[in-house]
């Protein structure tokens, strides 16, 4: 039993990503979408917390939202996987529930 969490806000604007990571269970997945993709960038004030959580949780970013914001995938924290809309659907189908952190 696992949950797909989505985060759509910048971690520098709201606590959505922080709260999400604090409530994830081992084996869950977190997909960063829309402004949430800023949470996946390396070298930010949030990066160490995200890196730490990646030991137990799989992290994804929605690549079209990354591209839209001019962020090269090479700037992502190592281990974060890019996915497209079809991959988003597969993630939803693969998990028992989806929880959106607004």
């Amino acid at each position, binding site marked *: 039993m696992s*949950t797909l969490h989505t985060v759509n806000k910048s971690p520098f604007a709201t606590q*959505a990503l922080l*709260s999400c990571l*604090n*409530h994830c269970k081992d084996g869950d997945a977190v997909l960063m979408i829309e402004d949430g993709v800023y949470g996946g960038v390396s070298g930010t004030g949030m990066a160490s917390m995200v890196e730490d959580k990646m030991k137990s949780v799989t992290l994804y970013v929605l690549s079209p939202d990354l591209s839209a914001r001019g962020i090269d995938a090479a700037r992502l924290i190592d281990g974060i996987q890019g996915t497209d809309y079809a991959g988003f659907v597969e993630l939803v189908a693969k998990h028992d*529930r989806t*929880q*959106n952190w607004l």
Partner: protein
Amino acid sequence: MTTKKFLYVNRKAPYGTIYALESLEVVLIGAAFEQDVSVAFLDDGVFQLTKGQDTGEIGVKNFSPTFRALGDYDVTKLYVEAESLAERGLTKDDLQDIQYEDEDDDYAEKPSIIIVNRAEMADVMADQDVVLSF
């Protein structure tokens, strides 16, 4: 009809945005479908349950008394995160006293608010069939 476990997650303060009121409306609508409903309050969502709200001078409806009616719709599990309260300088005593009548126990009045820590809140979330966020 199969009963599913529904959790409504509240993370926003009550009057700055429409989320909190919309959540309450959806909880009441959902209650009509006789599902196993729980409601979670964490982060700024805990502000929704504070007592003494008076919106008379800001021109919007004070919907906080409605939380006390949820028990009549069999919504009797209101999970409130202890860490979120503490971070905001709140204690349980700052929240409304919300009770329900337990029809299986001679209609004894029982508290609806369940204070849980962050790990317990994560367990509540992971135990659901459907999670709706506001």
